[in-house]
């Protein structure tokens, strides 16, 4: 195939730029967010999505307004890829009233119901039944919305994984279950958690169309998800996607991740999803370095502005909290 022909079949510049912008925005959010955490500005848990950006980026690019997503404890990337306002995300991490949850939820509970984001979740595996429920609500209402639940290799050993995917299957729901297989349940290797490490096979065993994809390749994730979403809209759901990936660090900010072998980490860092999104934009759409730099500095500026916005925001008052308590 000539270079010319290959370019003709290439994805659009708009798509490639969108994928890069999203992946890079997640990278900046997590990298800079960790600095805020180290400065003591963020309390509690912070589970970075570093290294896994390709999955949320590719999946959410294939979804439309009116669709739903449900996320995990490692949820910042899903929110950003879904189009969340970085101001309100940073404000939530800084426990401010202007945050997505007004400071009531924090990192593990960022949600935006009105936009179809059912939220991150502190209970591993819980997003699967909740997502199937959203897909069921869509079917009841006669809408063509698709719901994607991001789940994890760790959560695939949980009972609700089978129970809810099975419900989605018998009811032909427009539901896509994306297993982000980062190969660790906190610190426990997947080989110690299950005898069958090819997790997509679990879907096959209950009659669910299931696929495996390189989670560090945003474009591949996008292409596969787009097909899955189209099938779901035609009533041919649910579909399971296993996206293989690897964290760039431990389970959370304070976990050094010493159990992660250096050579494995190096292998995945060579296949960094943000680099791949950038390279795809450069190589397939002829975008030059100056343009890339401009995009990157715009995104970094957006984060800096969000920090300024959040620091200037107020916290919820005890009087407002008391009102909330009364209503509960």
């Amino acid at each position: 195939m000539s270079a010319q022909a290959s370019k003709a079949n290439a994805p659009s510049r708009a798509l490639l730029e969108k994928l890069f912008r999203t992946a890079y925005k997640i990278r900046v959010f997590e990298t800079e967010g960790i600095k805020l955490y180290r400065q003591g500005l963020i309390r509690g848990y912070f589970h970075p999505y570093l290294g896994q950006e390709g999955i949320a980026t590719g999946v959410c690019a294939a979804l439309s307004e009116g669709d739903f997503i449900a996320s995990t404890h490692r949820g910042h990337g899903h929110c950003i890829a879904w189009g969340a306002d970085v101001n309100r995300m940073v404000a939530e991490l800084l426990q401010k009233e202007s945050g997505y949850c007004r400071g009531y939820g924090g990192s593990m509970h960022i949600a935006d119901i009105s936009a179809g984001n059912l939220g991150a979740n502190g209970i591993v595996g819980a997003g699967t039944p909740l997502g199937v429920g959203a897909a069921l609500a869509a079917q009841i209402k006669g809408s063509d919305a698709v719901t994607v639940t991001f789940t994890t290799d760790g959560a695939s050993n949980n009972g609700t994984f089978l129970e809810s995917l099975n419900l989605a299957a018998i009811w032909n729901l427009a539901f896509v279950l994306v297993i982000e297989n980062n190969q660790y349940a906190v610190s426990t290797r997947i080989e110690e958690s299950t005898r069958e490490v090819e997790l997509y096979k679990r879907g096959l065993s209950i009659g669910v169309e299931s696929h495996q994809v390189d989670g560090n390749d945003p474009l591949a994730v996008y292409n596969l998800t787009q097909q899955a979403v189209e099938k779901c809209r035609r009533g041919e759901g649910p579909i399971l996607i296993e996206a293989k990936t690897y964290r760039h660090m431990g389970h959370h900010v304070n976990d050094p991740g010493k159990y992660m072998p250096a050579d494995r980490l190096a292998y995945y860092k060579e296949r960094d999803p943000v680099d791949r999104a950038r390279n795809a934009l450069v190589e397939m759409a002829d975008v030059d370095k100056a343009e890339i730099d401009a995009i990157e500095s715009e995104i970094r500026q957006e984060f800096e502005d969000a920090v300024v916005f959040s620091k200037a925001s107020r916290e919820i008052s005890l009087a407002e909290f008391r009102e909330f308590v009364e209503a509960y």
Partner: protein
Amino acid sequence: MAREIMYRDALREAIDEEMERDATVFILGEGIAERGGSYKVTEGLLAKYGAKRVRDTPIAEAGMIGVGVGAAIAGARPIVEILYIDFAMLGMDMLVNQAAKFRLMTGGDGRVPFVMRTQGGTGGGVAAQHSQSLEALFYHIPGLKVVMPSTPADAKGLLKYALRQSDPVMFLEHKHLYMTKGLVPDDEHVVEFGKADIKRPGSDVTLIAWSNMVPRALEAAAKLAEQGIEAEVLDPRTLVPLDKQAILASVARTNRVVIAQEAVRRGGVASDIASIIQEEAFFELDAPIEIVAGLNIPIPFNLELEKASVPQVDDIVAAARRALHAKPLALAAE
């Protein structure tokens, strides 16, 4: 005008009317569609509303409850029927960690108009894993509404209200009540949460009871009346929210209180109601608050032992007499 119908028919009327009124109301459970449910509550609904809104599920309580909670978050109004309250324990993560907390975790934006209908209590000889009264578990969790109707009218009105409000509701029926009869208004009948009902007025002692303890308290009140004691029977109907004002007002009238619960004594709702009364109406009391409750054990199969494990009518009568400093009946007869 009113008709006399059974508790289970009243529940069906509520579901039917709300499904008719609101197309986002649907119901799922084990054997509820074609079979019409183990207690015939959902009989006829499949034929009327179709398989999309009346769904049988596999035996997967955690999944069913979780899917119901997710559907509620996404804007539908699910009713999930769980055969026995004992089986709801399989779905506790979804109730306790998801449904109950969602509103707060989202800063108030996320609401969960989810109704779990289930039934508990003794009476069927179905032993330890099918006879529990577990309302205290849900009562303890902020964010869950706890509803325990004792009559057909309350069952209908409270279920209709549950399907119109926006918080997760634990709608706890009693296996002994499904075939009991009572008058239900012909007109639109909705009972708001947090409104206690005086099932029998009286001036000498207040009997606080819910669910299947209400008919027993009424029977006890009839016996007490024969002994010249006028008992007031107060049914909170919803434990969360609890109608504190009605309880305190009744205590102020009678100055004596018996609280009857079928659930085990330890860590029960009765203890919490007693605590509220002593805290807010201590000087109204002429006697210690009496609690009549189940023994702190799992329910045995043997019929006599099953009866001995939960309060009977005579236990309530005896407690009321103690509260009135009256002699036990056996001695009074001498």
